[in-house]
């Protein structure tokens, strides 16, 4: 396989990282563009596409109510949010279970948290250190 073939092979696999909708719409065309590109353009093609892939996953879909609200700096009420109250409740329940679980585990001396010689006076300095 030639150097160009290797680059195209790598680029084809890089395009697989796009969200499915975008990939189906533009990946074939992007590959054609890469095939037509000059060797000097390959660093730009790879770096630009990698950054764009990361952005495409970080950016919410334009059509979503949340995205529209963020764009126009509006406060979004619960009723307008794309996140349903049931999902919020599930999240709250999961967070509660996790916090209670962590509290319970911390009581079981599993983590071996550091303790002072005299637990009753947390702020009291050991005598050796106080003499210095």
């Amino acid at each position, binding site marked *: 396989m030639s150097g160009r073939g290797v680059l195209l092979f790598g680029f084809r696999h890089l395009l697989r990282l796009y969200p499915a909708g975008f990939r189906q719409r533009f990946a074939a*065309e*992007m590959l054609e563009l890469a095939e037509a*590109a000059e060797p000097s353009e390959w660093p730009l093609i790879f770096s630009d596409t990698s950054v*764009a*892939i990361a952005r495409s996953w970080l950016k919410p879909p334009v059509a979503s109510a949340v995205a529209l609200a963020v764009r126009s700096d509006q406060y979004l009420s619960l009723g307008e949010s794309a996140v349903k109250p049931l999902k919020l409740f599930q999240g709250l329940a999961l967070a509660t279970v996790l916090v209670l679980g962590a509290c319970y585990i911390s009581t079981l001396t599993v983590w071996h948290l550091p303790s002072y010689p005299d637990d009753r006076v947390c702020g009291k300095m050991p005598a050796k250190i106080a003499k210095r």
Partner: protein
Amino acid sequence: MKRKGAKEGPLTTAALHILLALSESQLHGYGIMQSVKRQSEGSYRVGPGTLYANLAGLLDKGWVGETQRKMEDGSLRREYFLTSSGEQMLRAEIQRLRQIVASARRRLSKLDERDA
């Protein structure tokens, strides 16, 4: 009175260059890349990731349209063109930039007078 396109805010550099490239003629992806490089005299280059992310947004907004063109070998190639709303947006953006440049010139000339 608000100008047309004002509610959309300023265009990104990439979107502006893409609309400018398409104002000349309808182009395919690589053609847009080359046109952007040419019109900016090499100072701005757009990669495929930025190009297609912007094209997706511009298509969704209706500022750019797409069409299929039959090539000599019988294959179909997708090309993009500037729509009338895209042209309005481009004109509004150029007007906004003109105002900025005019304001900047006035201020800089005052600085030149002060320094002279």
